């Protein structure tokens, strides 16, 4: 008997979804179609607009323009509760769990009308068996591994019988085996009719798991791709874009003849919280006068690497980091500064600078050893006022716009504060500089100035490690480029030899051997 073929209406359509925050357009007329029962990837770099889009889907934000069509009918998603009522469930990257409470209690708290705990435990065991998500409802969540905790979050969603499950970068906290198990669950879900929207930047996962992929870039939908008919290369290119072709690229080749000033060897760091990224055998050299760009989507180990480089985390083996052949792996930050190593971490507020202190005090924060004389008593008497001249000098030379001569750090705009922080490091004429996201959240004028300063610094023979999510920045400044992905660092390659697509591939998790360019040495083991 022939089955009548019903045209399947898409589960979800987004038409012209636009959302702005002030001047910044996070989503620009995004059109998007999600079919029932499919696993659909949402791919893009940081800042591409993925999380804004998804927050609108889950009712946390509402679009300025455009509409959602759910199951053929126009829908206005007013709140997470409304989204859940419609059948949309979401597992966030950062869990909302209660460590002291049991699995069953954690799930009960997330359900809008929960059955008794006893009944719920039964349902949990059933669901856990049905979906292959082994979990014991009575265990306290604090005792579970991260992978198990994610299962609790997923079960929270599944027990609501969703029609769409949104997963935000789920494998960033999982081991490869746990990821495989997750994929099995997702495939089973799709087969049973629940669609999955899978947000990720990991290309091989998207290839393996999803049947459709939508790529966002700069807030726009730049392509709907069928992974099976496409390639990681094509997706990577869409993800990072042809925009890279027209930016000013660093044209100097890497001068590998210059002496090595800084060296990292087999640096491994276990993840110290559930959401941290473990660093795996990172090795690289930095030559005098070169800018080594470390690209990568944030959340792949940048914070952990920065802390290891600055000395906020000490290496177990002093030899893992060396400066001019001296092992400094166990040197504290101020000990490293004594050697003319300077650092600018990613976060201006509360890390690189203290917002509630004046600029003079913030100068003292990193200059306290330079302005005091030797001797214990003399060092103890160091105080911020000794840094007034230095501060004035920084403000003058780096065009820091201030309301008066010694404002609080929080009175400065982002760009000006960043210029100050950079200037604070540059004024010491370092031999090695570590900068992370130097122009994030900074206005164009300040960003240009900061980048020019970095180039000038390199010209003077200083080695620079530039950690950045911004590919344009990486390409315009770096002589060599490496990519940080899931705690692995790809072997640095000369920037001239790399295309944006290559870098995009590496950011998406490919191995160096899959790219065009010859690498310095082969065989990075997983």
């Amino acid at each position, binding site marked *: 008997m022939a089955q009548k073929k019903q045209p399947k209406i898409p589960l979800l359509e987004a038409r012209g979804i636009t959302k702005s925050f002030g001047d910044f357009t996070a989503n620009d007329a995004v059109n998007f179609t999600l079919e029932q029962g499919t696993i659909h990837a949402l791919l893009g770099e940081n800042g591409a607009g993925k999380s804004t889009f998804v927050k609108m889907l889950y009712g946390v934000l509402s679009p300025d323009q455009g509409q959602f069509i759910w199951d053929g009918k126009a829908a206005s998603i007013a709140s997470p509760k409304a989204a859940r009522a419609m059948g949309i469930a979401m597992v966030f990257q950062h869990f909302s769990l209660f460590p002291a409470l049991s699995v069953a209690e954690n799930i009960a708290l997330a359900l809008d009308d929960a059955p008794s705990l006893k009944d719920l435990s039964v349902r949990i065991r059933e669901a856990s068996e049905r979906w292959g998500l082994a979990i014991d409802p009575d265990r306290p969540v604090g005792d579970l591994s991260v992978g198990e905790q994610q299962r609790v979050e997923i079960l929270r969603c599944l027990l609501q019988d969703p029609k769409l499950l949104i997963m935000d970068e789920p494998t960033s906290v999982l081991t490869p085996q746990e990821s495989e198990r997750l994929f099995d669950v997702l495939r089973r879900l799709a087969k049973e009719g629940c669609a999955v929207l899978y947000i990720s930047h990991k290309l091989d996962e998207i290839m393996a798991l999803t049947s459709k992929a939508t790529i966002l870039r700069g807030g726009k939908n730049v392509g709907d791709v069928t992974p099976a008919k496409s390639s990681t290369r094509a997706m990577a290119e869409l993800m990072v874009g042809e925009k890279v072709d027209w930016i000013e690229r660093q044209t100097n080749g890497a001068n590998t003849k210059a002496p090595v000033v800084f060296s990292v060897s087999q640096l491994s760091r276990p993840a110290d919280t559930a959401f941290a990224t473990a660093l795996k055998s990172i090795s690289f050299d930095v030559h005098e006068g070169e800018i080594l760009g470390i690209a990568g989507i944030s959340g792949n180990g940048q914070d952990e690497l920065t802390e290891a480089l600055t000395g906020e985390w000490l290496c177990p083996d002093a030899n893992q980091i060396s400066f001019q052949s001296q092992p400094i792996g166990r040197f504290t*930050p101020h000990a490293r500064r004594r050697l003319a190593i300077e650092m600018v971490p990613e976060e201006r507020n*509360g890390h*690189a600078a*203290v917002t509630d*202190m004046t600029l003079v005090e913030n100068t003292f924060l990193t200059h306290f050893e330079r302005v005091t004389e030797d001797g214990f008593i003399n060092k*103890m*008497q*160091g*105080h911020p*006022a000794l840094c007034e001249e230095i501060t004035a000098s920084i403000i003058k030379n780096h065009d820091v716009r201030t309301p008066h001569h010694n404002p609080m750090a929080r009175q400065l705009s982002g760009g000006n504060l960043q210029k100050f922080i950079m200037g604070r490091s540059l004024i010491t004429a370092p031999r090695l500089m570590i900068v992370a996201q130097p122009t994030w959240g900074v206005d164009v004028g300040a960003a240009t100035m900061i980048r020019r300063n970095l180039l000038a610094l390199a010209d003077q023979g200083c080695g620079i490690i530039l950690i950045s999510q911004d590919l344009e920045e990486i390409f315009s400044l770096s002589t060599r480029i490496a990519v940080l992905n899931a705690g692995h660092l790809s072997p640095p390659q000369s920037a001239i030899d790399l295309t944006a697509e290559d870098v995009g591939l590496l950011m998406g998790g490919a191995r160096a051997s899959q790219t065009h360019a010859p690498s310095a040495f082969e065989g990075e083991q997983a």
Partner: protein
Amino acid sequence: MIKLSPRTNPSPWLSVLSPVIAIIATLVMGALIFTLLGYNAGESLYQFFISPLSRLDRISDLVVKACPLIIIALGLVFCYRANIWNIGAEGQFILGALAAGAFALQFPDTTSPLLLPMMVLVAMIAGAAWAAIAALCKTLFNANEILVTLMLSYVAALLIDVMVRGPLRDPMAFGFPLTPMYPDAGLITRMPIPGVGYLGQLHYGVLIAFILAPIAWWLMHRTLPGFQVRVIGSAPRAGRFAGFSSVRTTIGVLLFSGAMAGLAGMIEVSANIGQLQPNVSFGYGFTAIIVAFLARLNPLGVIAAGLLIAMAELGGDNAQIALGIPKVVTGLFKGILLFFLLAGATLQHYKIEWASRKARS
């Protein structure tokens, strides 16, 4: 429903004005409560706040009363700025007094001028050691310092009780729980004012309080350890970035505040009592916490704050004598003042909004 939203540009004026506003609001509120309970507001306020200033010897008593408060609060300011909530200053005060007293009583016949300085040292070490217990519990075991220092205060009160009634007891005291009097060399004598003579109970110990305050300010703002305290309390991650150790700072501020409290204890006993008794503190450790907050955690403000609170205390004494208002009522003013100060601190960084429904962006 009241909602708080962060201010984008907190005004520096608020920082100076809020203690003043808090004081005025306190007076108004206090007057209201007095009237409601049937007392004459005007007379009560006079007794509390004007009468302590009406005679010179009363002013000197004010200063004497403020002395331990100032010294303890100076130590607490360092702790609180580092976000370490030491509320056991009461116990550290007691330990300081106890240790200094036990030490002095070992040398009943001495006339050495070294006795007092040694007592100071012993008191500071004892107070610091008592606080060190909490420091160890926090740094080694991550135990909450609020609860540990509080428990230790109870233990300290019991310790001095058992020591005074036991090993240190004066056999000739007719059964009263008292130690023998300290040797004269262990007493802090009254301090004459040139041209006026002796004023009330004014003693040399008061000088220490007034000298310590600017020294504490200097420590906080003109030395590296003080800078470390301020950075770690305000932005711990920046502290790590600079290379500062939060463990060392935690231990340091606890030891310092313990030493200060111990010093205050020793001075109180040597100046005003001259021997140990089971009760040497009258809530100074807790009152000093209010002083620290009233001073906005600023060492120089501690002098004014200490004097103000002491004035309320003395005013309470006068109000009791003149109007029959129980002494404990000073607590009313102190409590209200602290409430308003704390609210002011929040309102400096947040503004109040009346939200009816959850507004969505």
